């Protein structure tokens, strides 16, 4: 709204005077009252666990729930983690898991969005089908895929042997060299629909006349995509990539149900590893320190996410 209109409408509101903080708080006391229930619940269910996790990360804890027997040990837990080869292995696997999953989910989602963007018979049905992975429960999907991958009873091995691509059944998820990638395939399958929806929404914002102008200007379909469509998708792509990355970083259900991080930790990623440490081996202190590290990484990603979002706002506000 322009200032002119603003003045016209709010003619009777006096110029705001400089007010002290206390006065400001008092003035909006009801606003605080209204958000108080939500804030209190958040403090209890989110704030306190975060605080307690950070606290525990500085303690040597007993392998039981008798946590009052914990002993302060400074940064020992962090040192333990950062010097352990397993930490670096799991970190590498987490990076592979996150980057590869995010990349392929995005690219396949982009392809699907572009394919579904043009009109053709059966588009609605196809779109609905492609949305299924996103809407089915991750737990159910994990179990189904576990069976599909099964070396003796799995459909995938059966198909491959039948076609003759391999001569004996492959053990996708019980094999240290393939387990992580087998999980990534499932993960990509599960979340490419999300990228597809986001990018389909983004494609709607590409002005038709721009594509026509490019067509008259002599651009081929690929050039039109590269010069017109893609630049318009930049904002939504950033957001999609970041959301996927955050989500993949935090993945738990698929790896936990399908392999539990195994075999021999070959598909372990941070979250499954932390879970294992905490609830498998009851090393609360170390697990907490892990969680704190993860928390810091997530905050950095979150910062970029918010920045990408608000940058889009600025660009839009400028036009």
């Amino acid at each position: 709204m322009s200032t002119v209109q603003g003045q016209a409408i709010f003619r009777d509101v006096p110029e705001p005077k400089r007010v002290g903080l206390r006065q400001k708080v008092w003035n909006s006391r009801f606003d605080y009252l209204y958000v108080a229930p939500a804030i209190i619940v958040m403090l209890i269910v989110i704030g306190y666990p975060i605080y307690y996790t950070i606290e525990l990360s500085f303690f040597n804890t007993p392998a039981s729930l008798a946590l009052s027997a914990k002993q302060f040990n400074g940064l020992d837990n962090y040192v333990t983690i950062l010097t352990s080869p397993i930490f670096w292995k799991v970190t590498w696997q987490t990076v592979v898991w996150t980057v590869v999953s995010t990349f392929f989910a995005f690219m396949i989602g982009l392809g699907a969005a572009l394919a579904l963007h043009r009109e053709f018979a059966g588009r609605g049905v196809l779109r609905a089908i492609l949305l299924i992975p996103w809407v089915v429960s991750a737990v159910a999907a994990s179990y189904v895929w576990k069976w599909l991958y099964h070396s003796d009873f799995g459909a995938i091995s059966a198909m491959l042997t039948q076609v003759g691509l391999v001569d004996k059944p492959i053990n996708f998820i019980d094999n240290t060299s393939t387990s992580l990638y087998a999980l990534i395939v499932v993960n990509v399958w599960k979340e490419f629909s999300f990228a597809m929806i986001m990018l389909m929404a983004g494609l709607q914002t590409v002005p038709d006349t721009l594509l026509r102008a490019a067509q008259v200007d002599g651009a081929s379909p690929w050039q039109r995509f590269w010069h017109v469509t893609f630049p318009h998708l930049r904002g939504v792509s950033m957001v999609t990539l970041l959301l996927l990355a955050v989500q993949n970083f935090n993945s738990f259900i698929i790896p936990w149900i399908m392999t539990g991080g195994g075999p021999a930790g070959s598909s372990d990623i941070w979250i499954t590893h932390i879970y294992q440490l905490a609830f498998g081996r009851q090393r609360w202190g170390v697990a907490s320190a892990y969680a704190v590290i993860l928390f810091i990484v997530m905050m950095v990603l979150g910062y970029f996410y918010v920045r990408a979002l608000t940058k889009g706002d600025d660009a839009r506000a400028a036009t």
Partner: protein
Amino acid sequence: MAQVVLKDVVKNYGDVYAVNHVSLTVEDGEFVALVGPSGCGKTTTLNLVAGLIPMSGGTISIGDRDVTDLDPKDRDIAMVFQNYALYPQKSVYKNLAFPLQMRKLPKDEIDKRVQAAAKTLDIVHLLERKPRELSGGQQQRVALGRALVREPRAFLMDEPLSNLDAKLRVQMRSEIKRFHQDLNATIIYVTHDQLEAVTMSDKMAVMNGGFLQQYDSPANVFANPVNMFVASFVGSPAMSLVPLTAVTKGTDVVLASPEGWELPLNAANAKKALSAKSNKVVLGGRHSTIKVHKAQVPGSVPGKVYTVEPTGDVTFAQVFVSGAVVNVSVDPTFLLRPDEPVFIEFDQNRMHLFDGETEMALKLAD
């Protein structure tokens, strides 16, 4: 530059005929305005010429080539869009260079042409800016520039000025006209604003409901509208149309109103009136050919003032005549009041008569 010929062009979306058997020849170097109310098929026609949408029937040729089945890029035309359609992420320079890059011109040739176009349009100082950093008029010029660099065979412009404010529109109107004269360009210019069409074009093609109504010079369209639609669409204020009944009285023919007054017609108009399919005849007159009297004079008909709009130089008024609104203009010193009874005199030599059934202009068969 080249001639553009549309032959029997049809475009339908199911039962909706957006363009209905339109034939039209735009001569080399001619400025043709495609004009009509919103939804009459102007944009569709232009898009068909550009090749952006498939035709349902007919042929289009540009120069000596039949382009009916060619892609837009092979038709060698340039287009200017209503919302300018500049590539928002590219600088002005890159916007101008884009069509040349797509045609794989060498870099120095591209630069030469971009600079030349920028100079012509006085946008050299804007070359490094992004479109969103430009005013509407500047964006408009960049859009023109992007069309200009290509040296195409014809320019197609779809309401290029309708997003500008009134003052800028008048200014850009003359700039585009200059552009046409300097380049001797073939231009098809779409507008819903009849004034733009009249002031800018060599010829105007008036469309309605997908049909081409009339294709002629603005002066001829203005003077001899072929039907009631064209008559009421072209000219501002619009031509007034009063539905009446033709009655033969001895040797005379008069137009009779339901209220009982009669307007005797001269010989030529009488002959026209009698050539109508039925006795329903619509009387048409432009404000400039209508006189307003405070007292009855021979050949005048009674009316009642409805609204009065002084504009300074001239005062426009709307007068109810036999239930129809008649636009008149009077000298500002000639004071009219709403609801005042007045007498309206149509110029027999410049009045228009239309067939009440077919809505077509009645003409003397010669």
